[in-house]
């Protein structure tokens, strides 16, 4: 809706009755499917959740797995990725822009 359909981009949804091993499999399959020459970047909702746990084997082998994904972070990454050739660098940009995008509009508008 905002940045248009994406290539080299997969989402993995999770069932309430998810099995951790199966989820791990789905995530790793998706990661392999999107992988280009510069690596793969994984986003999950929160550290300690099942998607994060299931991504931890990927993380241990060097794939950046960013927890606490928010929409601005994702948009930034989708726009910047053609200019970046390192998944690690992209992950760092994602975290920076994710953090910077959290603000209180009332404060911002009142000039406070």
């Amino acid at each position: 809706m905002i940045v248009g359909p994406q290539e080299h981009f997969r989402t993995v949804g999770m069932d309430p009755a998810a099995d951790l091993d199966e989820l791990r499999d789905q995530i790793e399959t998706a990661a392999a499917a999107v992988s280009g020459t510069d690596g793969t970047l994984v986003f999950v909702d929160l550290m300690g959740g099942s998607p994060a746990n299931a991504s931890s084997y990927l993380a241990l082998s060097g794939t950046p797995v960013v927890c606490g994904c928010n929409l601005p972070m994702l948009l930034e990454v989708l726009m910047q990725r053609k200019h970046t050739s390192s998944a690690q660098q992209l992950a760092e940009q994602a975290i920076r822009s994710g953090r910077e995008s959290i603000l209180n509009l009332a404060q911002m508008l009142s000039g406070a």
Partner: protein
Amino acid sequence: MAVIHMRIDNRLIHGQVTASWVNALGANRIIVTNDKVAHDPVQKMLLPQAARGVPTLVLSIADTLAYAASEQGQKERILVIAKLPQDALSLIEGGLKPAEVNVGNQAPTPGTRFKMVTRSIAVTAEDAAIYRAIAGKGYPLTSKMMPGDRQNDFLDLLKKGGF
């Protein structure tokens, strides 16, 4: 005090579910119990982090029993998370005396004849027998996802599921 609550959940420690239970129970120790998980170095490293500050051990059934009976264990308010119904039964048969037993998530195992008795709990005939055995030892089973959920009787859910 020892084991104030035992949760049967194959997703182990996850998201807000575990945090909410720890807060509601006033637990100061989590033990994740399953022989296979206790031998997985990744899980042993990851689960304590997922527990976000609550001291966590990832132990086999035997080690869980030993810890709960130990002097240290007796002083703590322990939340035991058993991965599978069989783990829970083995713990109870081994002498663990949880104050409450709660059935959380159980994913269906592909290739088995299962039925979803709730949105997130798959049961086979073998599982049903295990749950009944747990109840038969004097441990009524409830199935609350979150602490504020209504109390129910898991055996009723089994009956409704045709088990």
